[in-house]
């Protein structure tokens, strides 16, 4: 049941991301969804007789997804307004803090930016070339790897104040990103999300 929930959650998340990502093509016409346009693919495989889910969507459809996001009160003109993201002993953490931290980290080049170890749980945020990697593992069978191009993070943090430029990030994703962006392994369940220019997997 948990795995199914995980798979469904991921697909739902993807749907939202897809909607946003094609925001890239905010000006794209339906005809622009041609064979040469990028497609986002999701594959969820549960072990044994479990479910196999494949989703293939043209990234240009993400434009519509942005419209769906716009229905949210915190989302306006492709940008999402976030409040404080969390607390630490020096006070609240906001988007501005993230923006400053990213500026420093971006200038630092390759390396491990953040490593958190708590028992068997381990989170590592690192940069290799033009890719920011977020690796999460819990010591059992659960592993999450998210690979985001540096320019996507740049675009996301382009907003001002406590805004994140989701439309801009998705546009950049559509224009420049090809290859795997998310990989999740949880026991026998695997999830892959990738972008290429083929309509099939």
């Amino acid at each position: 049941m948990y795995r199914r929930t995980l798979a469904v959650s991921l697909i739902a998340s993807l749907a939202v991301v897809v909607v946003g990502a094609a925001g890239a093509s905010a000006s794209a016409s339906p005809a622009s969804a041609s064979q040469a346009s990028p497609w986002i693919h999701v594959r969820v495989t549960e072990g044994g007789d479990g479910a196999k889910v494949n989703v293939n969507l043209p990234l240009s459809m993400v434009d519509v997804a942005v419209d769906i996001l716009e229905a949210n009160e915190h989302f306006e003109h492709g940008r999402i307004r976030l409040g404080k993201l969390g607390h630490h002993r020096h006070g609240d953490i906001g988007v501005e803090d993230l923006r400053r931290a990213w500026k420093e980290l971006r200038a630092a080049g390759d390396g491990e930016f953040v490593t958190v170890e708590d028992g068997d749980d381990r989170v590592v945020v690192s940069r290799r070339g033009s890719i920011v990697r977020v690796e999460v593992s819990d010591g059992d069978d659960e592993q999450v790897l998210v690979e985001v191009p540096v320019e996507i993070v740049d675009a996301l943090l382009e907003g001002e104040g406590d805004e994140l430029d989701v439309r801009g990030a998705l546009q950049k994703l559509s224009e420049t990103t090809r290859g795997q962006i998310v990989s999740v392994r949880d026991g026998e369940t695997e999830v892959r999300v990738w972008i290429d220019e083929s309509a099939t997997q």
Partner: protein
Amino acid sequence: MKLTALILVPLALAATLMTSHCMIVSVHEGGADGTNIVVPVPLVFAQAVLAVTPMPDEVRELRVPPEAERWLPVAGRLLEHLEGVPDAVLVSVEEGDERVMVRKAGDSLLVDVEDGDERVHVRVPVGAVADIVDKVSRGDIHPRHLVSALRQAPRGRLVHVRDGQDEVKISVY
């Protein structure tokens, strides 16, 4: 003169039926010796009847629920965009005996569901549905739009449901 009219009127009717879209609902129950019901509905007549028949209050007072109102333009844009998407399998799900496939083929979105002995095939003419959504989002709700959309739809089978020995088919020719 009367004889000529007696021959020409049925011929004219038959010619109209043959040249206009006709929806055929076919229901089969109970295997080889079961019951067959076939109902042909000439869409041009259906549309004419709906145009002149006063709608009951329940239909005339139909309104889009407020919670659906803001999503209709999004649905319209999604359908409009879908028309331009190249043919491809968009979603496929397999789990045990269950299979679901959603694919774009030409002007249509095809949905196939299999679950043991049950089979469901639905062809959604994207352009025709987009037209309906557009009208409904402008508050224009009337059954004739459905008939009009069916007349625009590519000819062929729209729905095929098989559950064991029972079958329902809806086609437009």
